């Protein structure tokens, strides 16, 4: 599948723009079993502590990833703590709670007026989310120490937030065509305010570069969507024709109807199968482009990750999710039957309804839901965080590291408010 897609739609990558002066490879000491135990134990503790353990688990995961990655034999140190994240979360609640109360009251008005007054609120949450990701990045950077010197990040989260919003709007309006330039502009903003000690960061990759690497994926995505839309429309018309023909349609029309249904099914399945490939390839292109744009003073970075490098990981997550979904469905059916057996003599129709309102049903589904969610998080924490990190980190070459000598420590610690906000808005990330 991968081989079929790749050659036609993608141009060869641009050669590394940096002269290969002194290159050093970034290394990742893979200790996956240890990490797996860490996240599984963490999930169990999350269950026991009704979720409060997530702050400490996130800290442990970062410590593991940071300390197993190294450049020229030196691994960074993550100095954040779970307690900081908890406090950040509590601060975030103070902001989120009034917002939610306001949302409730406005929602009340909106339903009364039968209007779409809740749309601006979605926009508000989006802005908030951008703000949170910016501040969360700042927290993580200021907790990252390499060779006894800390990373830092300034800039205003609000400033970033309106830029992100406008660029997103522009990307939507242009059907995603402007996405590469959005990414470049936002990364430039973030890197401009990022520093390692007194060594200022910047971002040199351009939107044009990302576009040249990924336009094929963009095109094929829209072709697929358009194709699917066309097929679905056609099927709808055929089905209307069949319906108009009355109770027993003529044979050729019936065959046409069945064919249309089959084609629609095949096409939508194909799109669903292709989507993870496209997403995974886009991600690896984006990673590679992003890494190649990072500069700290004279220090540059390059990645040689192939486009297909992340596809397997996406499919593993999908496979596990499907398995969990099947188990969950089987469990749901079982629970309904157990609940049914608890109900006395009532008509069959009511029995089913009562069974789905029965406490046994609630309890059974509730337990399975929580376990399912924790299992899903564990899977994503392994594949989407650890394994992606592993593959990305071990593809990186650092140039001119020697120029980053005698960097002077400066910058100050940022609070974990952003992380707290991100946590309450469910922003995932490293």
């Amino acid at each position: 599948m991968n081989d079929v897609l790749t050659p036609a739609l993608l141009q060869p990558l641009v050669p590394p723009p940096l002269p290969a002066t002194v290159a050093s490879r970034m290394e990742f000491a893979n200790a996956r079993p240890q990490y797996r135990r860490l996240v599984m134990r963490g999930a169990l503790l999350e269950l026991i502590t009704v979720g409060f353990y997530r702050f400490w688990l996130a800290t442990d995961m970062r410590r593991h990833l940071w300390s197993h990655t190294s450049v020229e034999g030196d691994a960074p140190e993550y100095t954040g703590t779970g307690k900081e994240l908890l406090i950040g979360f509590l601060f975030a609640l103070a902001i989120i709670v009034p917002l939610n109360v306001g949302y409730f009251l406005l929602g009340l008005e909106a339903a009364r007026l039968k209007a779409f007054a809740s749309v601006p609120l979605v926009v508000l949450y989006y802005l908030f989310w951008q703000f949170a990701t910016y501040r969360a990045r700042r927290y993580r950077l200021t907790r990252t120490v390499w060779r006894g010197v800390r990373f830092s990040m300034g800039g205003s989260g609000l400033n970033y937030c309106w830029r992100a919003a406008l660029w997103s709007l522009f990307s939507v309006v242009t059907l995603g065509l402007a996405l590469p330039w959005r990414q470049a502009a936002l990364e430039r903003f973030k890197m401009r305010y990022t520093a390692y000690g007194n060594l200022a960061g910047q971002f040199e990759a351009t939107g044009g570069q990302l576009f040249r690497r990924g336009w094929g994926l963009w095109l094929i995505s829209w072709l697929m969507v358009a194709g699917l839309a066309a097929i679905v429309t056609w099927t709808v018309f055929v089905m209307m024709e069949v319906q108009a023909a009355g109770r027993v349609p003529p044979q050729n029309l019936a065959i046409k109807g069945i064919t249309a249904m089959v084609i629609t099914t095949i096409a939508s399945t194909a799109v669903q199968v292709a989507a993870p490939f496209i997403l995974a390839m886009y991600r690896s292109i984006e990673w590679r482009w992003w890494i190649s744009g990072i500069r700290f003073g004279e220090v540059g970075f390059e990645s040689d990750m192939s486009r297909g490098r992340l596809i397997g990981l996406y499919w593993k997550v999908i496979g596990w999710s499907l398995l969990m979904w099947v188990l969950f469905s089987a469990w749901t059916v079982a629970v309904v039957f157990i609940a049914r057996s608890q109900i006395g003599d009532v008509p069959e129709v009511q029995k089913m309804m009562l069974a789905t309102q029965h406490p046994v049903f609630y309890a059974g589904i509730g337990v399975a839901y929580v376990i399912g969610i924790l299992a899903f998080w564990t899977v994503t924490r392994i594949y989407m965080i650890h394994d992606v990190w592993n593959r990305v980190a071990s593809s990186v070459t650092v140039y001119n590291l020697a120029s980053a000598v005698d960097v002077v420590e400066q910058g100050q610690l940022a609070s974990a408010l952003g992380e707290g906000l991100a946590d309450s808005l469910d922003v995932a990330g490293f």
Partner: protein
Amino acid sequence: MTMQDGTDHGTDQTSVAEAPAPAPAEPRAVYFDGKTNRKRTVTLQFAGGVEILEDGRIVDIWPFGEVRRADGPPNLMRLSCVTALPLARLEIADEATKAAVAEHCAALDLARSGRGGTLRIVFWSLAATCSIIGLAVFGIPLIADRLAPLVPYSMEKRIGDAADVQIRAVLGDKDCKAAEGQAAFQALVDKVKDAGGIEGPLEAHMLKSPMVNALALPGGRVYFLSALLDKANNADEIAAILAHELGHVKHRDHMRGVIQTGGTSFLFGLLFGDVTGAGAVIFAGRTLLNQSYSREVEGDADTYAIETMQKLGRSAVPMGELLLRVTGKERKEMTIFASHPLTEARLERMKKADRPITGPALLTDKEWRALKKICE
């Protein structure tokens, strides 16, 4: 025998060799001074503290009691010092030096959260959970009781309007209003309303719906569903059910319900933090909690219905009979969770409070027949 001797001898030799601890003459380490990222190769001496020497000159001394382990890669011991610069680090790779540090620095792992730290997190999480659940079970109903009477009518009306849209979406949007039936229905509602002493506006609707139910909303809205009407045998049954629903209106139960639901979901949301993650649990927990609370409320509404019917000189017993006809006999295991008291128990209560009928029939035969045909 010989083998045994040999083994013993070997063991002896090892322990002899380990005893004097011939650590390498120069324990080496990498030192970062916390000001720049210069990587400095140093040697360590363990005397008054961890003495850090570069080219034979002491650059810093870390007191033994203040050296802490910092997070680092698997095979590297990374140290910090409480009294040194926050980012000053020593990195030690060779085992003998690591052992020497561990031997001298007793407080090495003081700051690291080990098993004790995890237990503390578990303990405080459970404590927080208990306090939040306690608040939800005892605190919120109390607050709802005090707060509900203070909510202005206009606000209540607004909530009712919002709920109206949803109710109609679920139950059916079709009002039954055949002229004669509507007149009979309105007459019945007015009688019950006057007897019950309801002030303020009241809207009663007959909705076409396959569900057997009647319900009230905040802001004085009452819905009677046609399927329940179909099951009714006389006007008293309908009147008593209406009285029950008006009881909810009179007691402002729905306002209390809104405050309570809002309060508990807020509290559970607080507990779980990320709202989406445990949405189902929040929902299930809230349902159980609210249902056990609402049984009390339903009991009060029944009392109100009994009193109102007696003021009209009629009996509430027919309502209990209608309910029994609808639900059939119920099993007892579900009582903890059911939102309403058991139908049989309700009928029993109504029979106990029953008095002889003194008042005139609430509807004439003609009106009753018209009411039954309201949806046609």
